[in-house]
C-alpha cells in the first residue's frame, strides 16, 4: 500500500514538473510571477469552463495566459487586464463577478436563504418553548418523530 502511495505521489510530482515545463514564461522577478499566478487563478478558461486559466491545459487558455503575461509586461494593472478580457469574453471570464443587477441574487441569495432559515429556527424554538407546559396534557407521549 505504501509503495502504491509513493508511486502515485511520484507521478503527481512528475506531472507538476511537466506542467511547469510546458509553459515557461520569462517573469522579471518572483513578485511578478506571484501576481500572474493570482490573476490567472481568478480568470475562467472558456473551453473547459470549470477550470481557471492557471490550471487549464486548453490551447486557448495557454494563448490567454500569454496574453495576460504580455499585458503585464506592458505595465497594465490587474483591473485593466480583467477589463481587457471582459470586453472580449464578457463577465463570464471572472470567477469573482461584479455586483450588479443581474448578479444580486448570486451575491445576496445565500444570505437571504440563511436569514430565512434563521427565522424558521427562531419561530420553531419559540413555539416549542411556549406550549411546553400548557399544551403538554393533550399531546400524546413523545413519539420521537418531532423534527
Amino acid at each position, binding site marked *: 500500500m505504501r509503495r502504491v502511495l509513493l508511486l502515485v505521489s511520484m507521478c503527481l510530482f512528475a506531472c507538476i514538473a511537466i506542467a511547469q515545463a510546458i509553459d515557461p514564461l520569462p517573469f522579471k522577478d518572483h513578485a511578478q510571477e506571484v501576481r500572474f499566478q493570482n490573476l490567472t487563478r481568478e480568470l475562467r478558461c472558456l473551453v473547459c469552463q470549470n477550470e481557471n486559466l492557471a490550471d487549464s491545459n486548453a490551447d486557448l487558455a495557454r494563448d490567454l495566459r500569454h*496574453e495576460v503575461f504580455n499585458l503585464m509586461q506592458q505595465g497594465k494593472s490587474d483591473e485593466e487586464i480583467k477589463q481587457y478580457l471582459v470586453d472580449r*469574453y*464578457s463577465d463570464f471570464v471572472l470567477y469573482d463577478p461584479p455586483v450588479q443587477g443581474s448578479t444580486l441574487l448570486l451575491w445576496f441569495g445565500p444570505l437571504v436563504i440563511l436569514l430565512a432559515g434563521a427565522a424558521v429556527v427562531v419561530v420553531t424554538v419559540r413555539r416549542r418553548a411556549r406550549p411546553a407546559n400548557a399544551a403538554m396534557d393533550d399531546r400524546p407521549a413523545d413519539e420521537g418523530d418531532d*423534527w
Partner: protein
Amino acid sequence: MSRLIPFFGFLLLVALFGFGIWWNTQHDQREVPSPLINKPAPAFVLPKLDDPAQTVSRDALLGKPYLINVFASWCVACGEEHPVLMAQGKSIGVPVIGYNYKDDASDAKNWLAQHGNPYNMVIVDREGRTAIDFGVYGAPESFLVDGKGIIRYKRIGPLTPEAIEKELKPAIAALAKESP
C-alpha cells in the same frame, strides 16, 4: 401542520432541482453571450489563405455586410457544419468569409480541396491573436458584420439549417431593411 413544514421544504427543493434540470436542457451551458454584439468588429489585418502576400483588413471590408465563419481543419464540429455551408452558404445573401483559426495552411488547403470551399474568401489567423479580439473560444463560430463594421449576430457552434433559417436569415433581412 407544523410537522408538514419539512415536507414542504423538501418539495421546494425538489422543485428547484427540477427547474435546474429543465433550465439546463433548454440552454447550452457552454454558450457565453458575446459582449461584442452591436459593437464594432475589432480591427484586423490578416493574410489570405491562397495568397499570404495579400492581406484583408476590417476597414477594406466596410460598406457591405458579410459573415465571418471561424473554422479549422482540426475542428470536428467544423466538419459537421461544412456540408451546411456548402449547401446554403451561397443562398444566405451575404459573402461568407472563412476565418482559418490556428491551423496549418497546407492542412487548411487540403481540407477545403477535399470537402469543397464554401467561402468567398479565406483569411488566416495562424496564432489566434486576432481571434482573442473577436472573443473566439472554440471553432466553429460565426459573426455577422454589417456594412458599418458592427457585429450584429454571433453564433457559437456549428451553423445548422435550423439556426440559419431562424436566426441568421432574419438578422440578414433586418440589415437589408436598414440600408436599402
